[in-house]
Protein backbone atom coordinates (compact mmCIF):
# COMPACT_ATOMS: atom_id res chain seq x y z
CA UNK A 1 0.00 0.00 0.00
CA UNK A 2 1.60 3.23 -1.08
CA UNK A 3 1.35 6.54 0.69
CA UNK A 4 -0.91 7.69 -2.16
CA UNK A 5 -3.31 4.86 -1.33
CA UNK A 6 -3.37 5.90 2.30
CA UNK A 7 -3.85 9.56 1.38
CA UNK A 8 -6.78 8.75 -0.87
CA UNK A 9 -8.40 6.54 1.76
CA UNK A 10 -8.15 9.42 4.21
CA UNK A 11 -9.53 11.88 1.65
CA UNK A 12 -12.47 9.67 0.77
CA UNK A 13 -13.39 8.78 4.36
CA UNK A 14 -13.02 12.40 5.38
CA UNK A 15 -15.34 13.42 2.56
CA UNK A 16 -17.89 10.81 3.58
CA UNK A 17 -17.76 11.83 7.21
CA UNK A 18 -17.40 15.59 7.17
CA UNK A 19 -19.38 16.72 4.15
CA UNK A 20 -22.72 15.53 5.61
CA UNK A 21 -21.88 17.19 8.94
CA UNK A 22 -20.93 20.45 7.23
CA UNK A 23 -24.12 20.26 5.26
CA UNK A 24 -26.10 20.10 8.51
CA UNK A 25 -25.19 23.74 9.01
CA UNK A 26 -25.96 24.57 5.40
CA UNK A 27 -29.28 22.72 5.50
CA UNK A 28 -30.40 24.34 8.74
CA UNK A 29 -29.49 27.72 7.36
CA UNK A 30 -31.23 26.96 4.09
CA UNK A 31 -34.27 25.72 5.96
CA UNK A 32 -34.61 28.80 8.11
CA UNK A 33 -33.78 31.48 5.57
CA UNK A 34 -35.59 29.52 2.85
CA UNK A 35 -38.69 29.18 4.99
CA UNK A 36 -38.54 32.88 5.69
CA UNK A 37 -38.25 33.81 2.04
CA UNK A 38 -41.05 31.44 1.09
CA UNK A 39 -43.21 33.22 3.63
CA UNK A 40 -42.05 36.76 2.84
CA UNK A 41 -40.17 37.04 6.13
CA UNK A 42 -36.48 37.69 6.58
CA UNK A 43 -35.53 34.82 8.90
CA UNK A 44 -32.65 34.87 11.34
CA UNK A 45 -30.35 37.73 10.39
CA UNK A 46 -29.35 39.33 13.66
CA UNK A 47 -26.63 37.15 15.14
CA UNK A 48 -23.23 38.44 14.13
CA UNK A 49 -19.54 38.39 14.90
CA UNK A 50 -17.98 41.86 14.75
CA UNK A 51 -20.94 42.93 12.63
CA UNK A 52 -20.59 40.07 10.16
CA UNK A 53 -23.77 38.08 9.81
CA UNK A 54 -22.77 35.88 6.88
CA UNK A 55 -26.35 35.99 5.66
CA UNK A 56 -27.60 34.41 8.85
CA UNK A 57 -25.10 31.57 9.10
CA UNK A 58 -23.79 33.00 12.36
CA UNK A 59 -27.17 32.17 13.89
CA UNK A 60 -26.30 28.48 13.48
CA UNK A 61 -23.13 29.07 15.43
CA UNK A 62 -25.05 30.81 18.18
CA UNK A 63 -27.58 27.98 18.30
CA UNK A 64 -24.84 25.39 18.39
CA UNK A 65 -23.07 27.17 21.24
CA UNK A 66 -26.33 27.40 23.14
CA UNK A 67 -27.10 23.73 22.67
CA UNK A 68 -23.58 22.69 23.64
CA UNK A 69 -23.72 24.58 26.88
CA UNK A 70 -27.17 23.47 27.89
CA UNK A 71 -27.46 21.21 30.89
CA UNK A 72 -27.53 17.57 29.89
CA UNK A 73 -30.77 16.44 31.49
CA UNK A 74 -32.03 12.92 31.84
CA UNK A 75 -35.52 13.21 33.35
CA UNK A 76 -35.90 11.42 36.67
CA UNK A 77 -38.71 9.13 35.56
CA UNK A 78 -36.61 7.45 32.88
CA UNK A 79 -35.71 3.91 33.85
CA UNK A 80 -33.62 2.79 30.88
CA UNK A 81 -31.02 5.51 30.74
CA UNK A 82 -28.76 3.53 28.42
CA UNK A 83 -31.36 3.27 25.69
CA UNK A 84 -32.40 6.84 26.25
CA UNK A 85 -28.86 7.99 25.51
CA UNK A 86 -28.33 5.45 22.76
CA UNK A 87 -31.36 6.47 20.70
CA UNK A 88 -30.12 9.78 19.29
CA UNK A 89 -26.76 8.21 18.50
CA UNK A 90 -28.42 5.50 16.42
CA UNK A 91 -30.36 8.10 14.46
CA UNK A 92 -27.30 10.20 13.73
CA UNK A 93 -24.81 7.41 13.08
CA UNK A 94 -27.06 5.45 10.71
CA UNK A 95 -27.68 8.59 8.67
CA UNK A 96 -23.94 9.28 8.47
CA UNK A 97 -22.94 5.70 7.64
CA UNK A 98 -25.53 5.29 4.91
CA UNK A 99 -23.83 8.12 3.03
CA UNK A 100 -20.65 6.05 2.88
CA UNK A 101 -21.59 4.20 -0.32
CA UNK A 102 -22.52 7.24 -2.37
CA UNK A 103 -19.99 7.93 -5.13
CA UNK A 104 -19.10 11.60 -5.38
CA UNK A 105 -16.88 11.36 -8.45
CA UNK A 106 -16.03 8.87 -11.14
CA UNK A 107 -13.36 6.25 -10.48
CA UNK A 108 -10.13 8.14 -10.19
CA UNK A 109 -7.27 6.77 -12.25
CA UNK A 110 -3.85 7.78 -11.01
CA UNK A 111 -1.04 6.04 -12.87
CA UNK A 112 -1.95 2.39 -12.94
CA UNK A 113 -4.14 2.47 -9.84
CA UNK A 114 -7.91 3.00 -9.78
CA UNK A 115 -9.72 4.52 -6.84
CA UNK A 116 -13.48 4.20 -6.42
CA UNK A 117 -14.60 7.55 -5.06
CA UNK A 118 -16.80 6.33 -2.22
CA UNK A 119 -16.13 6.58 1.50
CA UNK A 120 -16.38 2.79 1.67
CA UNK A 121 -15.71 1.26 -1.75
CA UNK A 122 -17.94 -1.79 -1.92
CA UNK A 123 -20.24 -3.45 -4.38
CA UNK A 124 -23.47 -3.86 -2.42
CA UNK A 125 -24.23 -0.16 -2.97
CA UNK A 126 -27.93 0.57 -2.75
CA UNK A 127 -28.56 -2.47 -0.54
CA UNK A 128 -26.25 -0.94 2.07
CA UNK A 129 -28.27 2.25 1.98
CA UNK A 130 -31.56 0.36 2.38
CA UNK A 131 -30.17 -1.73 5.20
CA UNK A 132 -28.66 1.13 7.18
CA UNK A 133 -31.38 3.67 6.56
CA UNK A 134 -33.93 1.17 7.84
CA UNK A 135 -32.00 1.09 11.10
CA UNK A 136 -32.66 4.76 11.79
CA UNK A 137 -36.20 3.93 12.84
CA UNK A 138 -34.83 1.89 15.73
CA UNK A 139 -33.39 5.08 17.12
CA UNK A 140 -36.77 6.75 16.93
CA UNK A 141 -38.67 3.82 18.42
CA UNK A 142 -36.10 3.47 21.16
CA UNK A 143 -36.29 7.17 21.91
CA UNK A 144 -40.07 7.06 22.08
CA UNK A 145 -40.15 3.98 24.28
CA UNK A 146 -37.36 4.88 26.67
CA UNK A 147 -38.76 8.40 27.16
CA UNK A 148 -41.52 6.72 29.17
CA UNK A 149 -43.91 9.29 27.87
CA UNK A 150 -47.24 8.86 26.08
CA UNK A 151 -46.40 11.34 23.39
CA UNK A 152 -42.99 9.82 22.91
CA UNK A 153 -44.41 6.32 22.48
CA UNK A 154 -47.07 7.57 20.07
CA UNK A 155 -44.42 9.36 18.03
CA UNK A 156 -42.26 6.25 17.94
CA UNK A 157 -45.22 4.09 16.94
CA UNK A 158 -46.23 6.40 14.16
CA UNK A 159 -42.70 6.49 12.87
CA UNK A 160 -42.36 2.70 12.90
CA UNK A 161 -45.61 2.17 11.04
CA UNK A 162 -44.68 4.86 8.56
CA UNK A 163 -41.26 3.43 7.82
CA UNK A 164 -42.66 -0.05 7.28
CA UNK A 165 -45.26 1.32 4.89
CA UNK A 166 -42.83 3.33 2.84
CA UNK A 167 -39.84 0.96 2.78
CA UNK A 168 -41.90 -1.29 0.53
CA UNK A 169 -42.67 1.13 -2.31
CA UNK A 170 -39.13 2.44 -1.97
CA UNK A 171 -37.65 -1.02 -2.32
CA UNK A 172 -39.93 -1.83 -5.23
CA UNK A 173 -39.02 1.42 -6.99
CA UNK A 174 -35.38 0.46 -6.60
CA UNK A 175 -36.07 -3.01 -8.04
CA UNK A 176 -37.36 -1.53 -11.27
CA UNK A 177 -34.33 0.74 -11.29
CA UNK A 178 -32.07 -2.29 -10.89
CA UNK A 179 -33.82 -3.89 -13.84
CA UNK A 180 -32.84 -0.86 -15.92
CA UNK A 181 -29.30 -0.43 -14.68
CA UNK A 182 -28.59 -4.13 -14.21
CA UNK A 183 -26.45 -3.48 -11.14
CA UNK A 184 -26.69 -2.68 -7.44
CA UNK A 185 -23.37 -0.85 -7.39
CA UNK A 186 -23.95 2.88 -7.10
CA UNK A 187 -20.73 3.76 -8.94
CA UNK A 188 -21.78 1.68 -11.89
CA UNK A 189 -25.23 3.26 -11.79
CA UNK A 190 -23.67 6.72 -11.96
CA UNK A 191 -21.44 5.65 -14.82
CA UNK A 192 -24.48 4.21 -16.62
CA UNK A 193 -26.15 7.60 -16.43
CA UNK A 194 -23.23 9.21 -18.24
CA UNK A 195 -24.44 7.65 -21.52
CA UNK A 196 -26.67 9.43 -23.98
CA UNK A 197 -30.16 8.30 -24.93
CA UNK A 198 -30.79 8.45 -28.71
CA UNK A 199 -27.42 10.15 -28.91
CA UNK A 200 -28.46 13.48 -27.44
CA UNK A 201 -30.36 13.10 -24.17
CA UNK A 202 -28.42 12.34 -20.96
CA UNK A 203 -29.52 8.88 -19.90
CA UNK A 204 -30.55 9.87 -16.35
CA UNK A 205 -32.69 7.68 -14.17
CA UNK A 206 -35.36 10.34 -14.05
CA UNK A 207 -35.96 9.86 -17.81
CA UNK A 208 -35.78 6.09 -17.73
CA UNK A 209 -37.95 5.74 -14.63
CA UNK A 210 -40.35 8.72 -14.53
CA UNK A 211 -42.82 6.89 -12.28
CA UNK A 212 -40.11 5.30 -10.19
CA UNK A 213 -38.54 8.66 -9.37
CA UNK A 214 -41.81 10.02 -8.04
CA UNK A 215 -42.41 6.94 -5.91
CA UNK A 216 -38.86 6.97 -4.65
CA UNK A 217 -38.83 10.66 -3.77
CA UNK A 218 -42.13 10.40 -1.93
CA UNK A 219 -40.87 7.35 -0.04
CA UNK A 220 -37.57 9.10 0.70
CA UNK A 221 -39.42 12.06 2.17
CA UNK A 222 -41.35 9.68 4.37
CA UNK A 223 -38.18 7.84 5.41
CA UNK A 224 -36.51 11.11 6.37
CA UNK A 225 -39.55 12.10 8.46
CA UNK A 226 -39.91 15.34 6.58
CA UNK A 227 -43.09 17.28 5.90
CA UNK A 228 -45.60 16.28 4.65
CA UNK A 229 -44.79 13.03 6.41
CA UNK A 230 -43.50 14.31 9.76
CA UNK A 231 -46.29 12.84 11.83
CA UNK A 232 -43.80 11.32 14.22
CA UNK A 233 -43.24 14.77 15.67
CA UNK A 234 -46.67 16.26 14.96
CA UNK A 235 -46.42 19.09 17.43
CA UNK A 236 -50.09 19.98 17.24
CA UNK A 237 -51.24 16.61 18.52
CA UNK A 238 -48.32 14.89 20.24
CA UNK A 239 -46.19 17.89 21.31
CA UNK A 240 -42.89 16.81 19.80
CA UNK A 241 -43.37 13.08 19.45
CA UNK A 242 -40.40 10.88 20.14
CA UNK A 243 -38.02 13.64 21.23
CA UNK A 244 -40.37 15.31 23.68
CA UNK A 245 -38.15 14.37 26.64
CA UNK A 246 -34.88 15.25 24.96
CA UNK A 247 -33.00 18.47 25.46
CA UNK A 248 -29.53 19.93 25.15
CA UNK A 249 -26.90 17.89 23.40
CA UNK A 250 -29.05 14.78 22.98
CA UNK A 251 -31.66 16.81 21.20
CA UNK A 252 -28.94 18.36 19.07
CA UNK A 253 -27.84 14.93 17.94
CA UNK A 254 -31.42 14.06 16.95
CA UNK A 255 -31.60 17.31 15.11
CA UNK A 256 -28.31 16.71 13.34
CA UNK A 257 -29.36 13.17 12.49
CA UNK A 258 -32.48 14.49 10.84
CA UNK A 259 -30.55 16.86 8.64
CA UNK A 260 -27.83 14.34 7.84
CA UNK A 261 -30.59 11.93 6.80
CA UNK A 262 -32.01 14.62 4.60
CA UNK A 263 -28.64 15.22 3.01
CA UNK A 264 -27.97 11.50 2.55
CA UNK A 265 -31.30 10.79 0.94
CA UNK A 266 -30.78 13.82 -1.32
CA UNK A 267 -27.45 12.33 -2.34
CA UNK A 268 -29.06 8.94 -3.00
CA UNK A 269 -31.86 10.51 -5.06
CA UNK A 270 -29.28 12.44 -7.07
CA UNK A 271 -27.16 9.34 -7.59
CA UNK A 272 -30.04 7.09 -8.56
CA UNK A 273 -32.08 9.40 -10.73
CA UNK A 274 -30.25 12.63 -11.50
CA UNK A 275 -26.99 11.37 -12.87
CA UNK A 276 -25.00 11.48 -9.67
CA UNK A 277 -21.77 13.33 -10.27
CA UNK A 278 -22.26 13.35 -14.07
CA UNK A 279 -22.24 16.68 -15.88
CA UNK A 280 -24.84 16.37 -18.64
CA UNK A 281 -23.26 15.62 -22.04
CA UNK A 282 -19.82 15.58 -20.44
CA UNK A 283 -19.05 12.14 -19.19
CA UNK A 284 -15.68 11.33 -17.70
CA UNK A 285 -14.10 10.30 -20.98
CA UNK A 286 -15.25 13.46 -22.75
CA UNK A 287 -14.05 15.61 -19.91
CA UNK A 288 -10.63 13.97 -19.97
CA UNK A 289 -10.40 14.41 -23.70
CA UNK A 290 -11.27 18.11 -23.60
CA UNK A 291 -9.62 18.97 -20.26
CA UNK A 292 -7.92 22.14 -21.48
CA UNK A 293 -10.98 23.71 -23.24
CA UNK A 294 -13.13 22.88 -20.23
CA UNK A 295 -10.58 24.55 -17.99
CA UNK A 296 -10.61 27.63 -20.20
CA UNK A 297 -14.41 27.65 -20.17
CA UNK A 298 -14.44 27.52 -16.38
CA UNK A 299 -11.84 30.32 -16.28
CA UNK A 300 -14.12 32.43 -18.43
CA UNK A 301 -17.27 31.58 -16.44
CA UNK A 302 -15.90 32.18 -12.94
CA UNK A 303 -15.48 36.01 -13.19
CA UNK A 304 -18.95 36.32 -14.73
CA UNK A 305 -20.48 34.35 -11.86
CA UNK A 306 -18.38 36.40 -9.43
CA UNK A 307 -19.78 39.59 -10.90
CA UNK A 308 -23.38 38.44 -10.51
CA UNK A 309 -22.78 37.29 -6.93
CA UNK A 310 -21.11 40.61 -6.10
CA UNK A 311 -24.00 42.55 -7.58
CA UNK A 312 -26.46 40.43 -5.61
CA UNK A 313 -24.58 41.05 -2.39
CA UNK A 314 -24.39 44.77 -3.10
CA UNK A 315 -28.11 44.92 -3.66
CA UNK A 316 -29.34 42.80 -0.79
CA UNK A 317 -26.83 43.32 1.99
CA UNK A 318 -28.09 46.73 3.03
CA UNK A 319 -30.32 48.00 5.80
CA UNK A 320 -33.83 48.67 4.61
CA UNK A 321 -34.43 51.62 6.84
CA UNK A 322 -32.79 54.98 7.33
CA UNK A 323 -29.50 54.42 8.99
CA UNK A 324 -26.44 56.62 9.10
CA UNK A 325 -23.25 55.12 7.74
CA UNK A 326 -24.93 51.75 7.16
CA UNK A 327 -22.72 49.03 8.68
CA UNK A 328 -24.29 46.47 6.36
CA UNK A 329 -22.83 48.28 3.36
CA UNK A 330 -19.39 48.03 4.92
CA UNK A 331 -20.14 44.37 5.59
CA UNK A 332 -21.09 43.93 1.92
CA UNK A 333 -17.82 45.53 0.81
CA UNK A 334 -15.89 42.89 2.70
CA UNK A 335 -18.01 40.08 1.25
CA UNK A 336 -17.47 41.38 -2.28
CA UNK A 337 -13.74 41.52 -1.70
CA UNK A 338 -13.85 37.92 -0.52
CA UNK A 339 -15.81 36.90 -3.63
CA UNK A 340 -13.29 38.53 -5.91
CA UNK A 341 -10.47 37.02 -3.90
CA UNK A 342 -11.94 33.58 -4.47
CA UNK A 343 -12.35 34.30 -8.18
CA UNK A 344 -8.70 35.29 -8.41
CA UNK A 345 -7.68 32.18 -6.48
CA UNK A 346 -9.63 29.89 -8.81
CA UNK A 347 -8.23 31.67 -11.86
CA UNK A 348 -4.71 31.31 -10.48
CA UNK A 349 -5.12 27.59 -9.85
CA UNK A 350 -6.44 27.00 -13.34
CA UNK A 351 -3.71 29.16 -14.79
CA UNK A 352 -1.07 27.17 -12.98
CA UNK A 353 -2.76 23.98 -14.13
CA UNK A 354 -2.77 25.11 -17.77
CA UNK A 355 0.82 26.26 -17.70
CA UNK A 356 2.45 23.49 -15.72
CA UNK A 357 0.27 20.41 -15.34
CA UNK A 358 -2.13 19.90 -18.21
CA UNK A 359 -2.21 16.34 -19.42
CA UNK A 360 -1.53 13.34 -17.18
CA UNK A 361 -2.65 12.87 -13.58
CA UNK A 362 -3.67 16.50 -13.10
CA UNK A 363 -6.40 16.07 -15.74
CA UNK A 364 -7.86 13.21 -13.75
CA UNK A 365 -7.80 15.24 -10.55
CA UNK A 366 -9.39 18.22 -12.30
CA UNK A 367 -12.18 16.05 -13.66
CA UNK A 368 -12.74 14.50 -10.24
CA UNK A 369 -12.96 17.96 -8.65
CA UNK A 370 -15.45 19.14 -11.27
CA UNK A 371 -17.54 16.07 -10.64
CA UNK A 372 -17.44 16.54 -6.87
CA UNK A 373 -18.65 20.10 -7.38
CA UNK A 374 -21.41 18.92 -9.67
CA UNK A 375 -22.45 16.27 -7.21
CA UNK A 376 -22.57 18.72 -4.32
CA UNK A 377 -24.47 21.27 -6.39
CA UNK A 378 -27.09 18.69 -7.35
CA UNK A 379 -27.38 17.44 -3.78
CA UNK A 380 -27.71 20.96 -2.44
CA UNK A 381 -30.49 21.60 -4.89
CA UNK A 382 -32.19 18.39 -3.78
CA UNK A 383 -31.92 19.55 -0.17
CA UNK A 384 -33.50 22.79 -1.29
CA UNK A 385 -36.35 20.75 -2.77
CA UNK A 386 -36.83 19.19 0.65
CA UNK A 387 -37.11 22.64 2.19
CA UNK A 388 -39.28 23.84 -0.64
CA UNK A 389 -41.74 20.98 -0.22
CA UNK A 390 -41.80 21.43 3.54
CA UNK A 391 -42.90 25.03 3.28
CA UNK A 392 -45.43 24.33 0.57
CA UNK A 393 -47.34 21.26 1.68
CA UNK A 394 -49.24 20.77 4.89
CA UNK A 395 -48.86 17.61 6.93
CA UNK A 396 -50.90 14.53 6.04
CA UNK A 397 -53.42 13.05 8.37
CA UNK A 398 -52.30 9.65 9.57
CA UNK A 399 -54.91 7.63 7.67
CA UNK A 400 -54.12 9.60 4.52
CA UNK A 401 -50.47 8.74 4.97
CA UNK A 402 -51.15 5.03 5.26
CA UNK A 403 -53.64 5.08 2.38
CA UNK A 404 -51.12 6.80 0.15
CA UNK A 405 -48.47 4.24 1.04
CA UNK A 406 -50.48 1.06 0.68
CA UNK A 407 -53.31 1.92 -1.71
CA UNK A 408 -51.44 4.05 -4.20
CA UNK A 409 -47.68 3.80 -4.03
CA UNK A 410 -47.53 0.03 -3.58
CA UNK A 411 -49.68 -0.87 -6.64
CA UNK A 412 -48.00 1.84 -8.68
CA UNK A 413 -44.53 0.54 -7.89
CA UNK A 414 -45.61 -3.02 -8.74
CA UNK A 415 -46.99 -1.74 -12.03
CA UNK A 416 -43.76 0.12 -12.59
CA UNK A 417 -41.74 -3.09 -12.16
CA UNK A 418 -44.01 -4.91 -14.55
CA UNK A 419 -43.87 -2.26 -17.28
CA UNK A 420 -40.13 -1.70 -16.88
CA UNK A 421 -39.35 -5.39 -17.05
CA UNK A 422 -41.54 -5.77 -20.12
CA UNK A 423 -39.77 -2.94 -21.92
CA UNK A 424 -36.31 -4.12 -20.90
CA UNK A 425 -37.10 -7.64 -22.07
CA UNK A 426 -38.59 -6.36 -25.31
CA UNK A 427 -35.57 -4.18 -26.07
CA UNK A 428 -32.87 -6.71 -25.28
Amino acid at each position, binding site marked *: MTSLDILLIIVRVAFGAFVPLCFVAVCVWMERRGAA*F*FQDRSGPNRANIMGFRAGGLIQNLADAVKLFFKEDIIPGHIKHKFYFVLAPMIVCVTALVSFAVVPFADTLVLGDREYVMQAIPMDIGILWFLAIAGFAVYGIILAGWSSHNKYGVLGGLRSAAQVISYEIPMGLAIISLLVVYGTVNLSEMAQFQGQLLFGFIPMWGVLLQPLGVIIFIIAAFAEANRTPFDLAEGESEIVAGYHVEYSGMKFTIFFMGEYVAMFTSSAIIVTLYFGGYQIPWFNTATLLKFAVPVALLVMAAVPVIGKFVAAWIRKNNVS*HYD*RENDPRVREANVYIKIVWGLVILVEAIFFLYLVFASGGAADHILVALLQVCTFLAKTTFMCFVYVWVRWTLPRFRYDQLQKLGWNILLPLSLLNIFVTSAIVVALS
Partner: protein
Amino acid sequence: MSIKVKTIVRQGKSLQERLYLIEVFKGMAVTFRHFLRNFLDNSKLYVRHYPEVKPEITPRWRGRHRLTTHEDGSMKCVACFMCQTNCPAKCIQIEAGERTDGRTEKVPVKFDIDLLECIYCGYCVEACPKDAIRMDTGIFSVTGYKRESMLMTMDDLLATKGAFSEEEYKKGGA
Protein backbone atom coordinates in the same frame (compact mmCIF):
# COMPACT_ATOMS: atom_id res chain seq x y z
CA MET B 1 -89.00 32.53 6.06
CA SER B 2 -86.24 30.12 5.36
CA ILE B 3 -82.75 30.42 6.68
CA LYS B 4 -80.25 31.83 4.27
CA VAL B 5 -78.17 28.92 3.05
CA LYS B 6 -74.94 29.47 1.26
CA THR B 7 -73.81 26.46 -0.67
CA ILE B 8 -70.07 26.06 -0.75
CA VAL B 9 -68.67 24.50 -3.89
CA ARG B 10 -66.58 21.52 -2.96
CA GLN B 11 -63.15 21.69 -4.51
CA GLY B 12 -60.85 18.81 -5.22
CA LYS B 13 -63.14 16.44 -7.12
CA SER B 14 -61.73 16.73 -10.62
CA LEU B 15 -59.26 14.13 -11.86
CA GLN B 16 -56.48 16.67 -12.12
CA GLU B 17 -56.99 17.64 -8.51
CA ARG B 18 -57.32 14.08 -7.35
CA LEU B 19 -54.02 13.21 -8.94
CA TYR B 20 -52.66 15.62 -6.36
CA LEU B 21 -49.23 15.72 -7.90
CA ILE B 22 -50.15 18.46 -10.37
CA GLU B 23 -51.64 20.54 -7.60
CA VAL B 24 -48.51 19.95 -5.58
CA PHE B 25 -46.41 21.35 -8.38
CA LYS B 26 -48.75 24.30 -8.75
CA GLY B 27 -48.39 25.04 -5.08
CA MET B 28 -44.65 24.68 -5.28
CA ALA B 29 -44.61 27.13 -8.16
CA VAL B 30 -46.47 29.66 -6.04
CA THR B 31 -44.09 29.34 -3.12
CA PHE B 32 -41.09 29.40 -5.40
CA ARG B 33 -42.21 32.66 -6.96
CA HIS B 34 -42.26 34.17 -3.49
CA PHE B 35 -38.87 32.71 -2.73
CA LEU B 36 -37.31 34.00 -5.92
CA ARG B 37 -38.73 37.47 -5.52
CA ASN B 38 -37.46 37.75 -1.95
CA PHE B 39 -34.16 36.07 -2.74
CA LEU B 40 -33.34 38.43 -5.58
CA ASP B 41 -34.46 41.54 -3.75
CA ASN B 42 -34.94 41.25 -0.02
CA SER B 43 -36.25 44.80 0.26
CA LYS B 44 -39.60 43.35 -0.78
CA LEU B 45 -40.02 41.35 2.43
CA TYR B 46 -43.08 42.23 4.45
CA VAL B 47 -41.01 42.83 7.53
CA ARG B 48 -40.71 45.67 9.98
CA HIS B 49 -37.17 46.02 11.21
CA TYR B 50 -38.10 46.11 14.86
CA PRO B 51 -36.61 47.36 17.20
CA GLU B 52 -34.84 49.88 14.95
CA VAL B 53 -38.10 50.73 13.22
CA LYS B 54 -40.89 51.19 15.77
CA PRO B 55 -44.50 50.47 14.91
CA GLU B 56 -46.77 53.45 14.63
CA ILE B 57 -49.03 53.62 17.68
CA THR B 58 -52.46 55.11 17.14
CA PRO B 59 -54.35 57.02 19.85
CA ARG B 60 -56.75 54.08 20.13
CA TRP B 61 -53.96 51.68 21.01
CA ARG B 62 -54.33 50.33 24.51
CA GLY B 63 -50.85 50.75 25.92
CA ARG B 64 -49.67 50.80 29.50
CA HIS B 65 -51.97 52.70 31.85
CA ARG B 66 -51.46 56.06 33.45
CA LEU B 67 -53.36 58.17 35.94
CA THR B 68 -54.31 61.59 34.66
CA THR B 69 -54.10 64.86 36.56
CA HIS B 70 -55.87 68.18 36.56
CA GLU B 71 -54.04 71.22 35.19
CA ASP B 72 -52.71 71.99 38.67
CA GLY B 73 -51.17 68.55 38.92
CA SER B 74 -53.65 67.06 41.39
CA MET B 75 -54.94 63.61 40.70
CA LYS B 76 -58.24 63.17 38.88
CA CYS B 77 -58.87 59.81 40.50
CA VAL B 78 -61.39 59.83 43.35
CA ALA B 79 -61.02 56.15 44.28
CA CYS B 80 -64.52 55.14 43.22
CA PHE B 81 -63.30 51.58 42.55
CA MET B 82 -65.12 51.42 39.22
CA CYS B 83 -62.00 50.20 37.43
CA GLN B 84 -61.27 47.63 40.13
CA THR B 85 -64.87 46.45 40.00
CA ASN B 86 -64.86 46.11 36.25
CA CYS B 87 -61.40 44.62 35.86
CA PRO B 88 -61.88 41.08 34.56
CA ALA B 89 -58.32 40.14 35.53
CA LYS B 90 -58.63 41.65 39.03
CA CYS B 91 -55.27 43.34 38.56
CA ILE B 92 -56.14 46.71 40.12
CA GLN B 93 -55.78 47.14 43.87
CA ILE B 94 -56.97 50.42 45.35
CA GLU B 95 -57.05 51.73 48.88
CA ALA B 96 -59.01 54.89 49.49
CA GLY B 97 -58.35 57.68 51.90
CA GLU B 98 -59.38 61.22 52.82
CA ARG B 99 -58.55 63.92 50.32
CA THR B 100 -56.97 67.05 51.69
CA ASP B 101 -56.44 69.26 48.63
CA GLY B 102 -60.01 70.54 48.75
CA ARG B 103 -61.27 69.10 45.50
CA THR B 104 -63.48 66.32 46.79
CA GLU B 105 -63.34 64.10 49.82
CA LYS B 106 -61.83 60.88 48.56
CA VAL B 107 -58.54 60.00 46.96
CA PRO B 108 -56.63 56.76 46.52
CA VAL B 109 -53.75 56.27 48.92
CA LYS B 110 -52.73 53.15 47.05
CA PHE B 111 -53.40 52.43 43.38
CA ASP B 112 -51.54 49.38 42.12
CA ILE B 113 -51.85 47.75 38.73
CA ASP B 114 -50.15 44.39 38.39
CA LEU B 115 -49.14 44.37 34.75
CA LEU B 116 -48.44 40.64 34.94
CA GLU B 117 -52.12 40.09 35.56
CA CYS B 118 -53.46 42.86 33.31
CA ILE B 119 -54.96 41.73 30.03
CA TYR B 120 -55.07 45.23 28.51
CA CYS B 121 -58.81 45.05 27.81
CA GLY B 122 -59.33 48.74 28.53
CA TYR B 123 -62.43 48.20 30.68
CA CYS B 124 -60.88 50.33 33.43
CA VAL B 125 -60.65 53.25 31.02
CA GLU B 126 -64.24 52.79 29.90
CA ALA B 127 -65.53 52.41 33.44
CA CYS B 128 -63.80 55.50 34.79
CA PRO B 129 -66.34 58.28 35.42
CA LYS B 130 -63.62 60.87 35.91
CA ASP B 131 -61.35 60.18 32.91
CA ALA B 132 -58.70 59.51 35.53
CA ILE B 133 -57.18 56.40 34.01
CA ARG B 134 -56.09 56.17 30.40
CA MET B 135 -54.08 53.78 28.30
CA ASP B 136 -52.65 56.41 26.00
CA THR B 137 -49.00 56.26 27.02
CA GLY B 138 -48.10 54.53 23.78
CA ILE B 139 -46.01 52.06 25.78
CA PHE B 140 -46.54 48.73 24.08
CA SER B 141 -43.49 46.85 25.28
CA VAL B 142 -43.72 46.19 29.01
CA THR B 143 -40.73 44.32 30.33
CA GLY B 144 -38.94 43.86 33.59
CA TYR B 145 -36.26 41.79 35.27
CA LYS B 146 -38.30 41.13 38.39
CA ARG B 147 -41.94 40.44 39.16
CA GLU B 148 -41.94 43.40 41.51
CA SER B 149 -40.95 45.75 38.71
CA MET B 150 -44.15 44.81 36.85
CA LEU B 151 -46.27 46.19 39.68
CA MET B 152 -47.18 49.76 38.79
CA THR B 153 -47.73 51.92 41.86
CA MET B 154 -49.65 55.16 41.95
CA ASP B 155 -46.45 57.19 41.56
CA ASP B 156 -45.39 55.21 38.46
CA LEU B 157 -48.81 55.66 36.92
CA LEU B 158 -48.86 59.38 37.64
CA ALA B 159 -45.32 59.93 36.37
CA THR B 160 -46.07 58.82 32.81
CA LYS B 161 -47.43 61.40 30.43
CA GLY B 162 -49.78 60.69 27.56
CA ALA B 163 -48.24 60.20 24.14
CA PHE B 164 -50.91 62.12 22.30
CA SER B 165 -52.45 65.55 22.36
CA GLU B 166 -55.90 65.93 23.85
CA GLU B 167 -57.43 66.47 20.37
CA GLU B 168 -55.82 63.36 18.93
CA TYR B 169 -56.94 61.30 21.92
CA LYS B 170 -60.52 62.52 21.69
CA LYS B 171 -60.55 61.90 17.93
CA GLY B 172 -59.38 58.37 18.60
CA GLY B 173 -62.82 57.58 19.90
CA ALA B 174 -62.29 58.00 23.62
